[in-house]
């Protein structure tokens, strides 16, 4: 049942990314281009998403546990540390260079465009290298 819900969540999320044109890289760059030909449409995407989930989260997190599990699995870190900032800077650079963040990049794979596969492969390589880097840093 939990697996089915994960599938359904992914599906609705992917539909939302498509409807909102987040999977169109030039639309994303148009939003980030505030000093150029700015296209504010994506502000409505984030606005709609945050408004919806903020209202729902408020009520959901008051429940003792989720419907299909014994506990909520929430992030526990609260400290603003260097990896958070450095990671966000590097991610922002990649996002601004191409126009894809992880969700839309994966969703767009379905159209079988070779460049999307190259982007996702590089993204996974980055993920693994970050893991190695973090593991080494924690050791020293």
């Amino acid at each position, binding site marked *: 049942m*939990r*697996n089915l*819900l994960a599938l*359904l*969540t*992914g*599906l*609705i*999320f*992917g*539909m*939302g*990314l*498509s*409807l*909102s*044109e987040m*999977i169109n890289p030039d639309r994303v*760059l148009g939003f*980030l*281009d505030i000093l150029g030909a700015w*296209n*504010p449409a994506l502000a409505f995407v984030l606005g709609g998403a*945050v*408004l919806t*989930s*903020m209202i729902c989260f408020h009520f959901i997190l008051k*429940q003792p546990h*989720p419907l299909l599990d014994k506990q909520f699995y*929430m*992030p526990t870190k609260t*400290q*603003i540390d260097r*990896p958070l900032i*450095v*990671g*966000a*800077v590097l*991610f*922002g650079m*990649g996002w*601004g*260079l*191409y126009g*894809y*963040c*992880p*969700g839309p990049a*994966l969703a*767009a794979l*379905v159209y079988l465009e070779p*460049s999307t596969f190259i*982007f996702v492969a*590089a*993204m*996974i390589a*980055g*993920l693994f290298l*970050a893991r190695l*880097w973090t593991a080494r840093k924690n050791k020293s």
Partner: protein
Amino acid sequence: MFSVESALIALGGGVLIGAAASIFLLFNGRIMGVSGILSQALTLGPLNTRWTWLFLLGLVFGPVVSDAFLGTSQPVFAERSLWLTIVAGFLVGFGTSIGSGCTSGHGVCGISRLSNRSIVSVFVFMGTGMLTVFVMRQVGGL
């Protein structure tokens, strides 16, 4: 180009994304963060669970379902050089991994639960993204 209609469609897409995050939290009790779920799917050991792959499967098929029922169509793909594609993908993977999240985890879910880490992250990656586009449009002629 920007119009009232495009803003409403964007809002509708956003509501779907927020609904997905809410359904996931309500039933499974987890944050819908794509970079984290992808990382978990690519892990050996007890953290690797079937639901991560099913989520990703749903995500990948979302756009074609949307094309069939919501009247969307295949996006116009970015025309970027091979090296720029590789560098950008690498930065997105590396950055979201050490920064513990991306637009869905920090952006949608994190802001919604007023996490200070997520709010800082969103300001930083959005600001950096805007700066990058500015520099690229000035220098790179993108």
